[in-house]
């Protein structure tokens, strides 16, 4: 570790011990903002067609707002960094990672989660196909897979199995249900194509 004349750095280096520098080096501006910054603010989210009033900090992600505040726990957290797809929801019909979406930034949009896909007792065709094809095992990535597949069908770019694989690659399934997921998606897509040629 090179010594530094930078005064900001001196504060850090005061913590150096005999064992060497083993101290967190945060971003350049590590001082916390004043206490009035980032206080909870009111917001209205529309989730599965229902308006929900919330008073939360701007830093709360849509995923954490769904899971921790609204207790809509169908959307899952697997990485919290847009790397696994378990948190996938639809905003205005487009699939997005809710873990990288601020709740406040989603205000004004129509959010659809896994809880909003079935019509009462009647499952969404993709939900039914996932059961039929055993397109999941532990079930944890499943809501994200299904929401992603809903988005995929709406986009209309996936024709072949290879297309489906490529365009579902944002949803990781560690249990390895991929071939069954592709089968489920293709069955529903092909049925939809027959019904609406």
């Amino acid at each position, binding site marked *: 570790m090179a010594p530094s004349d930078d005064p900001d750095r001196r504060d850090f280096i005061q*913590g*150096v*011990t*005999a*064992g*060497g520098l*083993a*101290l*967190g080096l945060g971003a350049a501006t590590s001082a*916390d903002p004043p206490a009035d910054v980032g206080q909870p603010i009111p917001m209205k989210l529309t989730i599965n067609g229902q308006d929900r009033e919330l008073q939360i900090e701007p830093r*709360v992600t849509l995923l*954490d707002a769904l899971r*921790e505040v609204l207790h809509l*726990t*169908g*959307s*899952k*957290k*697997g*990485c*919290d*960094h847009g*790397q*696994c797809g*378990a948190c996938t929801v639809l905003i205005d019909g487009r699939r997005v990672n809710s873990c990288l979406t601020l709740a406040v930034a989603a205000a004004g949009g129509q959010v659809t*989660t*896994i*809880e909003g896909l*079935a019509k009462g007792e009647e*499952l969404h065709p993709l*939900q*039914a196909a*996932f*059961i*039929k094809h*055993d397109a*999941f*095992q*532990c*079930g*944890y*990535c*499943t809501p994200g897979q299904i929401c992603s597949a809903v988005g995929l069908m709406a986009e209309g770019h996936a024709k072949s*199995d290879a297309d*489906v*694989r*490529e365009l*579902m*690659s944002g949803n*990781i*399934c*560690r*249990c*390895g*249900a*991929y*071939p*069954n*997921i*592709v089968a489920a998606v293709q069955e529903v897509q092909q049925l939809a194509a027959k019904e609406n040629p």
Partner: protein
Amino acid sequence: MSTTAVGKPMDRVDGRLKVTGAARYAAEHDYPNLAHAVLVTSTISKGTIAEVVTAAAVKARGVAAVVTHKNAPKMKVPEPFGGEKPSAGSTTAPVLNTDQVFWFGQPVAIVIAETLEQARHAAQLVRVTYQEQPANLTLDSAGKVTTPKKIMTEATTVEIGHAERALKAATLKVDAVYETPQFNHNAIELHATVAAWDGGKLTVHDTAQFVFGVQADLATRFGLKPADVRALAPLVGGGFGGKGVAWPSTYLAPLAAKVVGRPVKLVLARDQIYGCVGGRPPIRQRVAVAADKDGKLTALIQAGRSATGTTNQFVEQFTFPARHLYACPNIYLTQETIALDTCPPTFMRAPGECPGTFALESALDELSYQLKIDPVRLRQINEPDKDPTTGAPFSNRKYQEALALGAEKFGWNRRTPEPRSMADGRMLVGLGMATATYPVYRMPGSARVAVSADGTAVVQSGCHEMGMGTATAQTQIAADLLGLPVEKVRFELGDTNLPFAMVAGGSSQTISVAAAVSAAVAELKGVVLKLATAGPLEGLKPAAVAVRDGGLYRTDDPASGESFASILQRAGRKSAEAKAEVMPGAEMQKWSMHSYGAQFCEVRVDPDFGTVRVVRFVGAFDVGRVMNAKTARSQFLGGITMGLGMALLEETHRDGRTGRIVNADLAEYMVPVHADVPAIEAYWVGDPDPHTPMGAHGIGEIGITGVAAAVANAVYHATGRRVRRVPITPERLLAAPRDG
């Protein structure tokens, strides 16, 4: 028992819950006044905490408490897993009750706050300084090397004949070193614990593969009676071994809850799972095989070193497959461990068999080219007639049937023998195969079966569902045992208030629980018979009665009998129940009991880039009777998929200077995505094992075994380049010397 339900491709009983988002996993349990806890973890691998500065964190918005080794209540460290008592101890490190740091990523503080965001932010304000000491981080480091006294119940070293002498004498032989790096489980569900105290009683919702182990662990740590700890894990979002023991977060959540006097939720961040949940250890193995010109093995040596922790004694049994697979007069197998200053390693899907088959089956493939004998043929030639190291008869070995089935389904006969002899345009094509194997393990199990006057039944065992389809298969089994339609049977699991079950591991759960359910049904017969004080069953002894069609029927007059519902209604009872506990029998001592399989892989390799894409995969298995054709196929697919990751993508990278895992996320630790996984076919022989409950074997782990070797062998066939270190990355493949 009639097998009306068993074997059928029944949809999962929890499928609807899982596809609608209604399934609730550990972190999704809420309590009034719940607080959120976030861990601060060490940034050195070995040393002492010099100072922890918590002032800024304590003052931060919403913070309820900051717990460090200075102010944490004392916890007693339980025995590690694998001891005499049921325990889920992951490490003997007294985490948060010590200033010692044993590995990078060890928890050193807990911040508890009103909201997750507040806790996360305050955790980042905790400043920790250390007195750092040099750490042992690699297989070649100065860590303590040990030859374990035993590996599980088996001898560490097996020696038959004179393997080194036979190897020396042979002209057709392979003697090579194979390496596998650290892997991490990466279940998509993050490790999480929700802990709530009620006076001296503790309830935890935990991401656990072993609720009774968690119960025992927490009871010891907090000085409670086991009965005062309730652990629940009815649904787990993937485990693969990573949730088999109680990692620190499991007991730090209750600790935090105790400190703040409120229920607490603690969810590890993904990078913290790499930091404080062990993975599969790195292993280096030498495999030497020799054969006569007809392909008969004359020497088989497998010896090597796996990493363990300084705070556990985990031994990855990578020499186990070689003990049972092939006939050979001269065998030498042994292994040692080196203790590293890393998060202690643990079991990951098919510990031992998975890395062991990579080395052994790669070496056999290399030998096949020396012998100019087809790899499938080589494995036919060396089929043993009894267990090659124990001498025990096989319980029901159908490996050759699986091999033939796989070869036929795959179309192995289209393979041309020479390396680099098949192509598709620019792409090199390779076909490879390897043997899969996994032992039959059975553990103690217990179950309660209750039948009701409304014609339904509830079956309970504190076992686990993390994707295997446990509740589904046990529902089918119980339905057939009771002679009820599956719709009338409900299976409950994952709760220490239910009858005891062991860890969901070792692919042992299905038969261990099935044996208990079967015994409970037998007990139930006597219980219900006592209630049949009138009618066709009156006065009969249990031996004169059989359970079938949802009731009891005379064995001497099968038409004569009565349904459970009818007996209960007449007796004015709502329900009747029985419980049974079953220990494994002596069958494992008497028979050599294993599952087998043959894995077939086709790859396309870009010769310029060294990128490998698997385009087809076929696995054929000998696993006894299959309980559910749909979920079984999924288990095989899942194991194979994880094996593809091991072969081509997965590796935990550690910075050798600090011990930091630098790819501790799902973008840089690469597990297969949809686009990496082709159509996979899974087949099974299906011959019931006469010596296991239901004729079944566990199937959760065998699918991953042999896969990495099948891929490496296909890559060699495509390119003439042998890569003995997974994952087979472009740089490793392009750097490997080329034959052919």
